[in-house]
């Protein structure tokens, strides 16, 4: 109750443009929002861009928050929508993966990503995290969303319904199909690796 009261006070302060209040407000949900964006976009920089854009949107449109759901859920919904917008915009663009990345000491390193599983990885641990996440990218977007939100981020069905703006029944039916689809995708990848 006290948290809700504090949250309401912080929201009111943030509405008037108080950055400190807003930072306190989003402190608890920021990391989860970043991880959600990262699972959607699978790129650290993109995830940070989308997270920043989402949080600025939240700050700007805070007066539109009616309180019909939890504030955190409202933030995640904006993050998911921004991720979808980002993916839609970059759908037809060729993905350019930067080889250059600045580390903490300011030195430039060249990274050459190789997502293809090595033979040993395929045989020894075909169900590794990276493999699953790769396969997750192969399934339809709606099913991918559900898997990310439910199985990776651990949101409840109700929260997922609010984030994706659909009913709980839809979420439940979608999650089963999504899991089956992911399993099938992993199997196909396993078969291709065997060949």
């Amino acid at each position, binding site marked *: 109750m006290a948290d809700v009261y504090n949250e309401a006070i912080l929201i009111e302060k943030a509405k008037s*443009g108080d*950055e400190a209040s*807003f*930072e306190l407000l989003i402190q608890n949900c920021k990391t989860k929002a970043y991880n959600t964006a990262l699972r959607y976009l699978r790129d650290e920089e993109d995830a940070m861009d989308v997270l920043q854009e989402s949080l*600025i949107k939240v*700050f700007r449109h805070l007066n539109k928050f009616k309180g019909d759901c939890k504030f955190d859920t409202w933030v995640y919904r904006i993050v998911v929508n921004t991720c979808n917008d980002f993916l839609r915009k970059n759908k037809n663009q060729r993905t350019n993966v930067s080889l250059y990345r600045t580390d903490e000491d300011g030195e430039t390193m060249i990274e050459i990503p190789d997502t293809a599983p090595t033979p040993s990885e395929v045989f020894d641990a075909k169900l590794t*995290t990276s493999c699953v996440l790769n396969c997750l990218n192969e399934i339809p977007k709606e099913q991918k969303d559900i898997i990310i939100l439910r199985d990776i981020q*651990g949101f409840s069905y109700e929260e997922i319904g609010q984030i994706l703006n659909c009913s709980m029944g839809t979420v439940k039916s979608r999650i089963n199909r999504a899991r089956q689809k992911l399993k099938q995708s992993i199997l196909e990848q396993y078969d291709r690796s065997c060949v």
Partner: protein
Amino acid sequence: MEKQSDLHNVTIDIDNEILDNDMEKLLAILHNVPEVEIPDRFEKRFSEALKEEGSRIRKERLAIAANEKRKWYLKVAATAAACFVVVFASVSMYNDVIGPDRGVNPAEESADAPMSLSADMSNDNAALDASKGIDDAGSIRAKEELTLPVEQPVTAMGRVDAEGSRESDSNGQDAGQAEIYYGMQSSEADTLCREGSKYVAATEEYWMYRRLVDEYLAGYEYKVTDCERDSETGSYLFEVHILMDPEGQIVDEPMILRGEQGEIHDSEKSTEGDEPQTDSD
């Protein structure tokens, strides 16, 4: 062939078992995907963007507040202006229509006087004002207007001479007087009667003969144009102009009716020796 089929089924069963096991593993893996911390560089750029947005929001709120204040002032000013207009209009109407200053302004009075007096010549108040000899311009005009009826006979007499359509009884002066009477009759409801050249007030006898004329000409549309009383015999001579017969046809003919001894006669017929058409029975 059957052996191949059995082999295929066995393979599927094995795969399903593997997959069922794999589903549990898959969910375990998904649940255990590690949470990644937000890179430190994000905080720096985010706080800058946040400050920028915060200042923008504050400016916007100030602008909105100023706009609302301005709207409020505009509303107050508009309300005050509307009230002022209503009060001004009310005071103006009071002064113009029912106010105490009504009639004080000589200019207004002079503009109004001729119209009101000419419109209603029998206005006693105006006559009173005019007779008092008030020295302002309006009163002088009113006086001039009041003198007009006295000058009317000249105009009427000229018209009679020019038309020459009416016969006088004895002399030109009588004819003129008759035409004056005709003019008065056209403007007044009742017809006055004259004795020679002198007009007399309408008596009960006169009104009795007028009623008899009405009865005599029942159904006709007519107009009494003249009435003369013979002072010696006490008879009345009515000049009547028949406009329309009872069938609605236009007649447009003059007629002279004589009223004597309580009866009405057609003057022309009676001179020819006919019996009177009707009487006051």
